[in-house]
Each structure stands twice: as structure tokens, then as C-alpha cells.
């Protein structure tokens, strides 16, 4: 397979199929039959035919480049669009200020504040080049948030890798973590949470999903549109280089071919320092009201920004491509249009404000260049060396790409899989067996302490982080006077989704909703990042459709809007797709962050209560996976009404100060929850489990949380009034060396042993970054 770059350079300069002359609109009109490498650029025969139909001639090389990137799966959502429409059909929500279609949705969080948040994948680049792939994933989502007019205030990351002990995971994971940290830390954005999970299905297809959240006043919302004839188009930020050419079409929209060539040149290279300057310059520009429209340059670069800005306005725009500042003067016009060089933005500015705009950019050492203007009519035209190389209706590039109703088929193995009931697996019966399984689950790579990762992230910067990992939700204060704040959680259990994508997606929605609720926040809105295999495989398409339907139905039932999202397809190597991985983000609001509920136990003598009902539900559970290597049966039952009751109860308990901790019960069951709550501050508990202790500890029934309180009577009454089942588990107590989790008549886990098991896993796999204390090796010291 030829890379996109090779295809292009051959076109523009090579001897073969086209003349070495610049391919202009005029030339395209006179050489209608010239062969073009559309297939190498990822376009299908019928798509190429459609472009010719739209233009009434063959496209120029530059136009072909533009269409190829904009009509890629990544940019056009051509396989997913017909399904995603369900999100737009959800009932109107007063909280939604800007909905799907803009760079990110905007939600009213009260007191005149608006919050915008979005999660995006950077899966394929992160596999090819882990550090830069992950870093630029963070950079891209931060620019999306900035583009809406918001100051970015926090990031999160949801990561999935192949088996934790696989050699390739040792290659990819450290680089991804360092990249997420390196970029986010340097931008000054606290990382407030996320996920880290491992599964064989991600070997060769790691998932790197990054979320950014930003805050602004209602009146500061910006939109991406080019309006006002004569207004200037200003490109600002980094120079344009040869990195990331064809990233969206080549990397993100094709399945990795096991024998294919290295794709490293298609991965972008990040410069977080430039992005930090861009953030500050943009916020100053917004503050002085200097733009009428703004768009970031991400996937498909200038092709995307110009065509989207123009088609959201009146349609007319002219760009002189020669004016684009370049890092590499040998770039061809098509390469300039496709380049995904990072840290660039495009603004529409009234002529009278251009000088002021440029002055702000100068202050922040940000390069800014007028590259064109908004024109009459509805054509996007681009000139190079005085000759016209692009003349297209921008809507056909940005919004009227192909739409596919891909064939769908329920996976042939699903009946067999669902019939393979995890409830029939051999169960532990004695206290010793239960203890062994408990330790196995919490020390598995999925269940183990994630400090190895999270301590590489700055959680403190900006000084508003109220809760961060390992808490269930990240909580950030947005107003220091009123104490208003937001909560965010990201969840995406792919085992559940593999067993039943409709239910599994709703379970992920339920878990993110619950994680926000246990912090005491009121859930407000939903975003998503849908990671799936190839849409050209009917079974994958069926999984995707079921997941979307599940999410739409779930949001309808919870009364939450979907504010936007991201779709990542072609996550497969060869013909084996990843498990469907719908990562769901839920945003909640805290009227007073001082009322937030943390997840860890701090004090002795508090009553430990389980809220919600436990059923015998082991399908897709961590226990089945860790102990038996088993995936089968049905995922837990979804009861969104019960989730809502639990969420409302937790918000009330937090508001009234009735609970001192709350932690949800999810993968790993109660064993995982108790472990994390106890180890947070080293406080043990004496517990009693009624009924089958195995089900009590390892079932993953949804709509449950563990709380601790000094007033069990009041909590029980409140729960009963809310229609939430309450079970008293015991009392916290015991710290210091003898602290333990004691389950009466069954087992006793000393906290130091539990901590040793829980914390050892990731350092053992990925190295212990201990410092050499005190002494510096000879020769390492500079002489003064």
C-alpha cells in the first residue's frame, strides 16, 4: 500500500500519470481523463465519481486531497451518521445551550456559567507513536474546547491496552501515559480522572480517549462560522509542516494491516508550549471581542477549518495558500491543505479589528497571518502562486460527504456467548478461597492501584481540583466565591458491551452517572467516545447500532441530553475487532463543592451501608475474567430508574451532610469498593455479609453504592423514602499496623497486606520509578 504522502508527491512532481505542472482548476478542466490516485488517498470508486459529479470535472490534486480527508470516516462520520441522528432526536433539554454539530456541546451549569466538554479518540496514532499520539490527542481535544470560547480547566483520559504483561503493552503504555502527562502538565490542566483497563482485544489496538472540559460565561460562547463579506481569515499558532499528512484518512480510517509499512510519518508532533500560548492568546482575543468565528485545526487541518467555517457561514471564502507560514518550504499545496500540524487555529476577524488581533498574538509570541477573506457567493477558492487550485462548494466538502447505511448482522457467536452463563462457574466457598479471589481481583491489572499512572499527571494546577483520581468522579470548582463546581466521570466497560452492546452501553452510562452522583453532584449531560472495529464488517456495525440505540434510550430515560461525541472505527488488526467499547462521559453540577462526598473512609466508628440491591450477576464480571478467564452470559440488569433514585438520594445525602464517604460498586463488585475505600486513608472495618458472601462480594449488580455515616438512622430513613434498599454492612474502625477489613466468621484482610497486593501490580509490570535517595552517582554532577 502506498502512503498518502507518496501518492501526492508523485502527483505534483513525478513524471508519470499527470504532468509535472501545477494541477490547476483550469488544467483539470482540460485534462478530464487523467488518472488520479484516489484509492491511495482512501476514496472509493463511487466516492470519486461523486466528486467529479459535484464539480462537473475531475478534481485538481489539491481538491482531491481536500475531499479525501474530509470524506474520510474520521471526519465525515459516513458509517455512523445514520445512527447518531438518534441523539439529536432526544427531547429538548433546557441545560443544553449548544448541541451536536459544533466543536463541542455547551451546557448551562447555573449562575450564568456554561461548561463545554468532549472526549475524543487518538487510538491509531497512539499505537504507531505512543508519546506523540497520546500527547496530540490531548492537544486536539483541548483546542476543541478552546474553540467554543471556553477556558479549558481540566482533562481526563480513558486508556485501554492489550494484556498487561504483553511486550507490546510495555512499549505502548509508558509512552501513552508520558504523552498524556507531558502535554497536559505543560498546558497547566489538571488531570482529574479516567480509566486504565487491559484486554487481549486491544493488543495492536490500544484505545486512547482524552476528555477536556472548559468553562465560560453564557455570553462568551463562540461558534465556528465565517460570516461578513470582507472579513479576514487569520491562521495563527504553529507553522505548517509535513507532519500528520493524511492522519485522518490513512491512520484513523483504515484497519491496520499486519504486514503494512510503518505509518509513523502520519502521526503529528505536539508542542504543548505553543498550545499554552495559543490558549492565553485566544482567551485574550475573546475577551476583547475580536473574532466573529473561530475554528481549530485538527484532523484534516486547513481543509477542514476552511470548508467548515465557510459552509457554516454564507459559503464564500478565498484563501491565498502562499501566505501560510511553513515549517518546510518544499510542501506541495495539497500537503499544506492536508497537514495536521498541531497548535493551529483559524479565526474570522473584521478588518477593523485585525491590527488589535495581531497585537495580542505578538504579545504571546504567537505567529498570526492573514491568509484570506470571506467572499460573496458560495464557493471556497484557493490560489497558489497566482493560480486557482481549488474552487468548490464548501458544503460538499464539509457536510455533504457520503452517507452509508452499512449492512448489519448480529454476531454469529453471540448466542453461544450469552448462553455460557458465568453463574455456572466454580465458586469460592470457604473464607480462604474468598480471600484468595478477593486478592486476585483487586491485584489484577484492571483492579490494581493506578498511582503508577496518575502520579505522572498534575492534579493540582489551577488550584480548583476538589476531587481527582482515584475518586469516582473528578470535581472542579468553577467559582471561588459561590463554590459552584462540576463533576465528571468516564466509564466504558467493554466486556458488558461485548455480551450485549445495547445493555452494556446503558450500563456504562449508568456507571458514569452513578460516579458523578456519588460525589454528590447532580448529573446534567452526556458525551461519548464510541470505539469499535471496522464498519465494513456487518457484525461490528450491528454492535455499533445497538450501542447508539442503547445510549439514546438510556439518555431519554434519565432525561439527559447528549452534547456531542466522537466515533472511532476500524479499531481492529486483521479481521479481529476490539470488543465494542463505548466510553460514556457524564457531567454533573455541584452547587457547592464544599458539600462533595469523597470516596475514602477517614474516621473510626462510622456505619458502613450498602445502598441498592445485590443480585446474582456475574456475566462480564471482573471475578469471572480474573479468576476463570471467562467472558460469557448476560451483563448485569440495567435499571435506570433505580440509578436515578440512587443518584437523587446521594445528592440529598451530600447536601444535608449525612454521609462522610460514598463509593460506587461496579467492576470487581463490593470487594473492589471496600478495598479502595479502606486503603484510601488506611481505615479498616468490621463487616458482616448476610446471605451468600460470594454474591455479596463479587456480583456486579448496578445501581449500588457504599456510604459511611454517623447517622445511620437518618440515612436509612432517607433511603427508604427514596425507594433505595439499604443493607448495614458494619462499622469502620482500626487504623495503624493492625488495621484490617474483617468479614465476620469469614475472613480477615490486614490493610498492609491488602495494600501490598493492590499497589504492587503496575510497578511490577512497568518498573518502579523510585528515586535514588540522597546520593548522586559520581560523574553526574556538573562541576561549578
Amino acid at each position, binding site marked *: 500500500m502506498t502512503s498518502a504522502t507518496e501518492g501526492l508527491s508523485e502527483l505534483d512532481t513525478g513524471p508519470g500519470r499527470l504532468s509535472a505542472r501545477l494541477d490547476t482548476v483550469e488544467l483539470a478542466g482540460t485534462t478530464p481523463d487523467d488518472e488520479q490516485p484516489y484509492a491511495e488517498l482512501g476514496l472509493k470508486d463511487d466516492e470519486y465519481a461523486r466528486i467529479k459529479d459535484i464539480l462537473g470535472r475531475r478534481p485538481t490534486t489539491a481538491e482531491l486531497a481536500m475531499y479525501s480527508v474530509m470524506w474520510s470516516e474520521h471526519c465525515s462520520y459516513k458509517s455512523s451518521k445514520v445512527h447518531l441522528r438518534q441523539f439529536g432526536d432526544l427531547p429538548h433539554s433546557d441545560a443544553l445551550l449548544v448541541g451536536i454539530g459544533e466543536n463541542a456541546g455547551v451546557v448551562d451549569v447555573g449562575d450564568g456559567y456554561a461548561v463545554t466538554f468532549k472526549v475524543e479518540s487518538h487510538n491509531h496514532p497512539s499505537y504507531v507513536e505512543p508519546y506523540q499520539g497520546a500527547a496530540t490527542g490531548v492537544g486536539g481535544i483541548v483546542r476543541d474546547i478552546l474553540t467554543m470560547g471556553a477556558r479549558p480547566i481540566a482533562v481526563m483520559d480513558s486508556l485501554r491496552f492489550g494484556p498487561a504483561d504483553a511486550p507490546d503493552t510495555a512499549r505502548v503504555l509508558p509512552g501513552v501515559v*508520558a504523552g498524556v*502527562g*507531558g502535554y497536559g*502538565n*505543560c*498546558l*497547566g490542566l489538571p488531570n482529574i480522572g479516567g480509566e486504565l483497563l487491559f484486554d487481549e482485544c486491544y493488543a495492536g489496538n490500544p484505545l486512547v480517549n482524552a476528555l477536556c472540559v472548559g468553562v465560560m460565561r453564557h455570553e462568551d460562547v463562540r461558534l465556528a462560522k465565517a460570516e461578513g463579506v470582507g472579513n479576514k481569515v487569520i491562521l495563527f499558532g504553529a507553522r505548517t509542516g509535513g507532519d500528520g499528512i493524511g492522519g485522518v484518512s490513512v491512520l484513523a480510517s483504515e484497519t491496520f494491516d499486519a504486514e503494512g509499512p510503518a505509518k509513523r510519518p502520519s502521526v503529528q508532533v505536539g*508542542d*504543548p*508550549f*505553543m498550545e*499554552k*500560548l495559543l490558549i492565553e492568546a485566544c482567551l485574550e482575543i475573546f475577551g476583547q471581542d475580536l473574532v466573529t468565528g473561530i475554528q481549530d485545526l485538527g484532523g484534516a487541518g486547513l481543509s477542514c477549518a476552511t470548508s467548515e467555517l465557510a459552509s457554516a457561514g454564507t459559503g464564500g471564502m478565498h484563501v491565498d495558500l502562499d501566505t501560510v507560514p511553513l515549517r518546510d518550504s518544499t510542501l506541495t499545496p495539497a500537503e499544506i491543505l492536508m497537514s495536521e500540524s498541531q497548535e493551529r487555529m483559524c479565526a474570522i476577524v473584521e478588518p477593523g479589528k485585525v491590527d488589535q488581533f495581531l497585537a495580542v498574538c505578538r504579545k*504571546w*509570541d504567537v505567529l498570526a497571518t492573514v491568509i484570506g477573506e470571506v467572499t460573496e457567493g458560495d464557493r471556497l477558492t484557493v490560489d497558489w502562486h497566482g493560480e486557482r487550485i481549488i474552487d468548490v462548494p464548501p458544503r460538499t466538502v464539509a457536510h455533504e460527504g457520503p452517507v452509508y447505511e452499512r449492512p448489519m448482522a448480529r454476531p454469529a457467536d453471540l448466542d453461544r456467548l450469552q448462553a455460557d452463563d458465568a453463574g455456572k462457574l466454580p465458586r469460592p466457598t470457604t473464607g480462604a478461597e474468598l480471600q484468595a479471589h478477593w486478592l486476585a481481583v483487586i491485584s489484577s491489572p484492571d483492579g490494581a492501584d493506578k498511582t503508577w499512572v*496518575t*502520579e*505522572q*499527571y*498534575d*492534579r*493540582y*494546577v*489551577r*488550584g*480548583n*481540583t*476538589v476531587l481527582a483520581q482515584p475518586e469516582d468522579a473528578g470535581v472542579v*470548582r468553577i467559582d*471561588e466565591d459561590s463554590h459552584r463546581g462540576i463533576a465528571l466521570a468516564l466509564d466504558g466497560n467493554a466486556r458488558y458491551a461485548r455480551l450485549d452492546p445495547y445493555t452494556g452501553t446503558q450500563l456504562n452510562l449508568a456507571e458514569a452517572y452513578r460516579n458523578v452522583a456519588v460525589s454528590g453532584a447532580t448529573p446534567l449531560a452526556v458525551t461519548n467516545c464510541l470505539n469499535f472495529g471496522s464498519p465494513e464488517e456487518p457484525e461490528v456495525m450491528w454492535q455499533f447500532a445497538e450501542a447508539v440505540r442503547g445510549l439514546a434510550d438510556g439518555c431519554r430515560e434519565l432525561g439527559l441530553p447528549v452534547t456531542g461525541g466522537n466515533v472511532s472505527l476500524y479499531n481492529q488488526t486483521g479481521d479481529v475487532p476490539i470488543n465494542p467499547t463505548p466510553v460514556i462521559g457524564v457531567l454533573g453540577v455541584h452547587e457547592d*463543592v*464544599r458539600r462533595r462526598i469523597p470516596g475514602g473512609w477517614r474516621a473510626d466508628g462510622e456505619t458502613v451501608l450498602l445502598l441498592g440491591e445485590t443480585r446474582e450477576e456475574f456475566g462480564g464480571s471482573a471475578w469471572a475474567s480474573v479468576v476463570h478467564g471467562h467472558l460469557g452470559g448476560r451483563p448485569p440488569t440495567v435499571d435506570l430508574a433505580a440509578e436515578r433514585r440512587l443518584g437523587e438520594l446521594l445528592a440529598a445525602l451530600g447536601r444535608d451532610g449525612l454521609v462522610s464517604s460514598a463509593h460506587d460498586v461496579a467492576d470487581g463488585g463490593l470487594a473492589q469498593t471496600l478495598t479502595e475505600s479502606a486503603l484510601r486513608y488506611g481505615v479498616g472495618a468490621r463487616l458482616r455479609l448476610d446471605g451468600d458472601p460470594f454474591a455479596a462480594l463479587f456480583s456486579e449488580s448496578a445501581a449500588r453504592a457504599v456510604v459511611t455515616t454517623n447517622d445511620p438512622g437518618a440515612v436509612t430513613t432517607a433511603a427508604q423514602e427514596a425507594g433505595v434498599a439499604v443493607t448495614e454492612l458494619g462499622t469502620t474502625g482500626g487504623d495503624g499496623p493492625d488495621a484490617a477489613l474483617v468479614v465476620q466468621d469469614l475472613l480477615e484482610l490486614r490493610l498492609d497486606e491488602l495494600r501490598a497486593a493492590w499497589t504492587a501490580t503496575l510497578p511490577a509490570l512497568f518498573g518502579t*520509578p*523510585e*528515586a*535514588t*535517595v*540522597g*546520593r*548522586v552517582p559520581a560523574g*553526574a*554532577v*556538573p*562541576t*561549578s
Partner: protein
Amino acid sequence: MRIGIITFPGSLDDVDAARAVRLAGGEPVALWHAEHDLQDVDAVVLPGGFSYGDYLRAGAIAARAPLMQDVVERARQGLPVLGICNGFQVLCEAGLLPGALTRNSHLHFRNRDQVLGVERADTAWTSSYATGQRIVIPVKNGEGRFVASDGDLDRIEGEGRVVVRYLDGNPNGSSRDIAGVTSENGRVVGLMPHPEHAVEDLTGPSTDGLGFFTSVLKAVVNA
């Protein structure tokens, strides 16, 4: 009491430092690196972050900013200056403090709540503490390993210029567990940990960091 906080391109914790000054009872004054204007402030904080992206060497480019010439000159006359993390790196690069900050020995960025021992409670920035006091404030850096030649280290120790030392584990491989040092006159202090992130119960692991900012207010009154 006016405490200036310098913003360089790439400074990140300037908002946090301003909040800490405010909570301590001072008036934070935003200073811009490119202007020769200290705006009559009574003390200066160089905040954490990644000035100039840590390009060349962390702090090396910021140390040559126009305003730093004024800071160096005034610091030698006794102006209290606190450099936190990247600010510490800038102070070393500017020659106001001895030693250098290099890549952590384990090569990772590391963010954790760190126990520190206060060894000098008589500098402009630490008089609110007691000698020997244990405090917990966050540390977060990728290039925080304090190094100097053995001779310099002996001199720094001999002159009692170690202000704070890492206890219960060294997060980055710093020589002799040194977390912060001071100038000969005790007016300039640099430290890698972040006291401005430990000023509120709601957001920090403690409020132990506030003492740096209350100390300087007293130092300015007494000066």
C-alpha cells in the same frame, strides 16, 4: 502588602500563587516578563510551570527575560523572592541560588503529596514555621532533581542554606534530599514543592503551604 507574581510564557501556577498571596492577606500583583516594571511590589514570586516549554534547559530562557534583570538587581539589595518549581529553576539559572535542577533520576514526571522538614525558619519566606517542623505539600515535577558539586553541597549545608528537605522518601533523586535552598541573606528562596497548592482544605492535602506567604508579609513589615 503588594506581592508580585511574574508570568512568563508557559507559566502555569501563577493563578495559584496569586490565590495563595490573597489567602495569606497580601495583594497579588501580576507582573509581565517582558516589561522592566516591578510596579513597586514588596516581594516577588516566580511561579511554577513550563516557561518556554522547558526548551534549552528548564528556566534558562526565562532567566534572561527583561524583568529578571530587575529582579536580580533588587534581590541582591534584599527584595524577597520566592521561586517555586520552575521559578526555582529560573533562580538557579539567573545565578541567585546555587546548584541546578535536572531530570528526575527515575525519568518520570511525578506528582505526590510530600512530607518536608523545615530546616530554616528564619528566612523571609519561612518565619511562620518552626525549625524541624514537618509539613505536607504537593511536589510535581519532571526536572526537579537538585544537584551541585560535592564542594558546593558541603558549602550549602555548612552555611545552613537548606530551607526544606524531603522526608519519608525523595521524589526525584535530589542530592542529599534537598527540596529548597536560600540565598546567603535569607531573602531569596527556591523550592521544588508547591506551597501554593496547599493553602485550602478543599483543594490541597493540607494548608501547610500558606506559611510561606504569611512569612513574607511579616518579613516585609519588619524590613
